[in-house]
């Protein structure tokens, strides 16, 4: 398929903006005026529409098919969210307006205030910032808050402890913030090995980053013990809330003893991601961390007026422009108030039920390394299929031929040949049954005709791109 530049025909155009009049041109300083035409493709409106419509048809999205990508929560995003995000009063509002005259931005400030309050209630935290642009940015913010807390207390800290079952971004965020990482393995049940954790803890540990439920899709049963041990060394407990969709209305990180939480609004609270839109990694903190939160911060006075809080010298400052991705906040806010408390509890119950349904149904066909009730996702391996030379990658590719987006594979790293499935609450039983049938059929074919699975996908325009070459020979083309 030709790209948009290859389609260009000299002289063709959709809209003719005309020649600018001399008077307007003269207003631009001479040294800033364009002398050569910009290297844009020349196309008619129809050329452009067809090009992008065709491209969109090649795209795989949750709007068209089931997308059980573990650890990524590719749930359906209700269209009502989008409707709220395009209300002209919001889209036309300049972010500086709130700084100049907050009476003109009361609605937007109310959204920021309300979503923060709602998330405080959902997570049991004291205060939230809307600034971070995505999960990993939220993590970095959280680690900077950890550092600010210790600095204020005069603590000398060097390490962040991360269990093996955490998200891969956790150790990366800690390292970016300048800490060394101590890794703790998991026990036979998939939780952090508390004995090893106790052994590795020391007074130089600044914080402990837990992904809850973990990337193994299981709840950390010994969390109370873990928090107690961390407290003894004045280590801050960090909750990676990327998997918050499994525990809504059931248990709160704040009640478990966590000090800092990041939430991926684009996952749990249903705003598009994965190429479909920017993210938001709101960060919530407990009482003892609250003073360090990024600013500006929205508050409400006794007469109900929303205002931007005055500068606070303990704040770590800004981590993003204005209040972060405001459009994303609007979508998540819509989702939360649309579902309400009961609805959010249903979200988690259905997400967990769906994952367990798949787990139980596929258990006879795929190896299940941690055989216990799972949370919102389940982790299988390709161990049974490897005997016939079929790997997790091949199973993933075979699913493409059957109309499914592949699940996450080779992650979490602690599970060899992992296949991690997260159905989410938005899929019906019928849809799950069809997926289970497809997985069963792949397992059978892997036995009877392994070559067929190893040669899939056969229905796509390109069968298997050379992933090694793509990763080794990086080539970025810019115009």
């Amino acid at each position: 398929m030709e790209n948009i530049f290859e389609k260009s025909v000299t002289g063709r155009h959709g809209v003719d903006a005309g020649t600018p009049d001399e008077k307007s041109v003269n207003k631009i300083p001479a040294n800033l005026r364009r002398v050569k035409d910009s290297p844009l493709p020349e196309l008619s409106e129809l050329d452009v529409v067809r090009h992008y419509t065709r491209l969109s048809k090649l795209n795989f999205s949750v709007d068209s098919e089931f997308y059980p990508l573990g650890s990524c929560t590719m749930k359906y995003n209700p269209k009502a969210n989008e409707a709220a995000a395009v209300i002209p009063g919001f889209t036309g509002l300049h972010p500086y307006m709130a700084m100049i005259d907050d009476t003109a931005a009361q609605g937007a400030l109310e959204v920021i205030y309300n979503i923060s309050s709602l998330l405080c209630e959902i997570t049991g935290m004291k205060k939230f910032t809307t600034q971070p642009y995505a999960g990993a940015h939220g993590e970095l913010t959280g680690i900077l808050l950890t550092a600010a807390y210790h600095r204020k207390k005069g603590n000398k800290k060097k390490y962040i402890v991360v269990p093996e079952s955490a998200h891969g971004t956790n150790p990366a965020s800690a390292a970016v913030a300048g800490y060394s990482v101590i890794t703790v393995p998991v026990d036979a049940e998939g939780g952090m090995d508390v004995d090893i954790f106790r052994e590795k803890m020391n007074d130089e540990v600044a914080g402990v980053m837990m992904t809850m439920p973990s990337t193994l899709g299981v709840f950390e049963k010994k969390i109370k013990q873990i928090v107690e041990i961390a407290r003894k060394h004045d280590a801050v407990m960090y909750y990676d809330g990327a998997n918050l969709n499994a525990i809504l209305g059931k248990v709160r990180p704040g009640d478990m003893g966590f000090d800092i939480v990041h939430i991926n609004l684009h996952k749990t609270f249903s705003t598009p991601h994965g190429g479909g839109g920017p993210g938001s990694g709101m960060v919530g903190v407990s009482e003892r961390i609250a003073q360090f939160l990024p600013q500006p911060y929205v508050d409400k006075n006794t007469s109900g007026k929303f205002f931007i809080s005055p500068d606070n010298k303990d704040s770590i400052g800004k981590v993003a422009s204005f209040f972060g991705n405001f459009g994303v906040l609007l979508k998540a806010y819509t989702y939360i108030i649309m579902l309400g408390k009961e609805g959010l509890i249903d979200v988690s119950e259905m997400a967990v039920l769906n994952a367990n349904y798949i787990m139980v149904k596929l258990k006879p066909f795929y190896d299940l390394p941690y055989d216990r009730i799972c949370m919102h996702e389940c982790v299988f391996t390709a161990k049974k299929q490897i005997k016939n030379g079929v790997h997790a990658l091949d199973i993933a590719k075979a699913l493409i031929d059957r109309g499914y987006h592949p699940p996450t594979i080779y992650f979490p790293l602690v599970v060899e040949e992992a296949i991690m499935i997260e159905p989410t609450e938005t899929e019906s039983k019928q849809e799950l049954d069809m997926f289970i049938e497809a997985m069963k059929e792949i397992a059978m074919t892997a036995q009877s005709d392994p070559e067929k699975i190893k040669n899939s996908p056969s229905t796509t325009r390109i069968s298997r791109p050379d992933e090694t070459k793509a990763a080794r020979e990086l080539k970025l083309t810019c115009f």
Partner: protein
Amino acid sequence: MNVKDGYFYSKEHEWVKIDGNKAKVGISDYAQHKLGDITYVDLPPVGKAVKQLEILTGIESVKAASDIYSPMTGKVIAVNKALENAPELVNASPFEDGWIAQLEISNPAETANLMNAAAYKTFLSGLEE
């Protein structure tokens, strides 16, 4: 799976070959096999000091990004520059051309915390069960 005599191995599948107070470090044939096609080796800076079994550097394959732990305490005195353009050497020749860094070691007795070839072979057969 190839295991070479004369090398010491860590449980994390790094090897070290000691020559006086110098020690070359790489990953085992088992490790490269499990990782799959290596796409990038993050060469540690020369001069970096590292303790035994602490993170020396990182390696990326089509499947995953992993840490490489230092089998010995020491200081990096050389790195295998050839890996910059040819990370596949780790797959093709994990014990020779695919070496990653050379350390100046301070305590040769630390090999007591590692496995020799025979012990590593037994360790691997335990993993394959």
